[in-house]
């Protein structure tokens, strides 16, 4: 309990870093939900009659590819939204923050 104990400053993320987090993370969450929805109704094994590998790797590969595809789509959408917000008149004319 020494009074001269130094305090660590609360870290402040740069704007670029905050933007990156705001684009990647929410789109990750949405991609998770979307993947669940998609593959609840679609069984990838119903497509390819001749599955290349065992069923395990075929379905798992399809789920994984589906997830990353949906994540990419959500990233694109989130990034575009962020771009629109960031380049709007009020944002540019607003107080420099």
């Amino acid at each position, binding site marked *: 309990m020494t009074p001269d104990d130094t*305090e*660590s*400053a*609360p870290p*402040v993320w740069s704007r670029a870093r905050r933007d990156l987090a705001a684009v990647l993370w929410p789109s990750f969450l949405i991609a998770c939900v979307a993947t669940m929805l998609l593959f609840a109704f679609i069984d990838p094994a119903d497509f390819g009659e001749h599955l290349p590998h065992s069923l395990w790797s075929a379905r*798992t590969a399809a*789920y994984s590819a589906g997830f990353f595809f949906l994540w990419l789509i959500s990233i694109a959408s989130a990034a575009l939204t962020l771009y629109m917000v960031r380049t709007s008149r009020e944002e540019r004319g607003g107080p420099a923050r």
Partner: protein
Amino acid sequence: MSTPAPHAGGESLFVAAEKIYPREIKGRFVNLRRAAVWALLGLFYVLPWIEWNGHQAVLFDLPGRKFHIFALTLWPQDFIFLSWLLIIAALSLFFVTAVAGRLWCGYACPQTVWTETFVWMERITEGRRGARMALDRGPWTPEKILRKCAKQVLWVSFALWTGMTFVGFFSSVRSLSASMMHLELGPWEVFWTLFYAFATYGNAGYLREQVCKYMCPYARFQSAMFDRDTLIITYDTERGEPRGARRRGSDQHAQNLGDCIDCRICVQACPTGIDIREGLQIECIACAACVDACDAVMDRMAYPRGLVRYSTQNALEHKTAHVIRPRIIVYGTLLALLIAGFIVAITLRTPFGLDILRDRNALYRELADGAVENVYMAKLLNKDEHAHDMLIEVHGPVPLELDPARIVAHVEGGAVANVPLRVLTRDASLATFGFEVSVRAEDDPSLKASAAARFIQPGH
């Protein structure tokens, strides 16, 4: 909704992310969180290893497209139940938030739970707060290298174990660890193990509470569930101010001082680096570290505890506190209804499914004796845990026969059986008509299902 004040005055707000060195503290809420961490992590790492009726008790068998949760098996057709469960979970979170604030954040969120564990591993390798700060400032001595390496070894192995356990919820953990021993893991098993391990390592080792501040959506909308009667972490301004340093045992009233001795230990203890004395802030994850920190100081000063405590805005302003209020009643009633509905629906659920698919190759076949035959594939889905012998029957507007006349399909528990059905009729009065296929268990007549199908034959 305050922004953290720029440190050391006048600096740019866009300073590079600095490290937080939360001060270790002891107290009631730290113990409570530690208990929660043990219980939740124990659940996570042990659950996949528990067997139930010959299968992994909790297994979200993605490749097999069925979820086992103890006696309950959910199929893709039961998607509604899973969504229902998720809605119940979300509403429970709202309910708890309205009553007790960010309890979830402080005690149960995976981010908190794993961060706590990673901080503990950092502490046993690099030492306490002061030692860690000195170590980071100091030169790269052999001791520093050793301590840093030890920490990384612990972090990485724990993260890998976490990743493997995570994948073990989706594909049998026993076969997973067996194939790991023989280095025969599939590419996707390896990929997802590493993916989750990396996420754990990064989130709990480095990002920590920055995830709550910058990435967590719940942190942003939880205040919508708050009202003046929600339990929050508060600083009792009335009692604490004016704050100031004083000699222990000196007369604070003579010096015109409140109970806050301005030791700033609450700030040092805060994992998000805020000062709770400035009021409720969005960064506060309600971990109550500052409560424990302040209570210890109050004990030393021989002041009553609770200068920083769980309280409500109404209580602080000496207004009446309401535990029962419209918000709580609405959330509570909705939650009770959803849970009751779920239990009823899952109890009444038919544990048997039947799908009839037409043979794609031929519409119909005319047999030598004048009968017309249609061929179908019956998909029998047994959601029950036990195997059943299912008797298949057909009923239509005209007399129908099955070939062979009596078909009994044996379906294993939690399995699908594909049974070819040859349906024939000698009545040509209808060119096309719908009929019903029904199945029932020979050992349990209440276990039954039916499906509609279409019969096609040459016109007149």
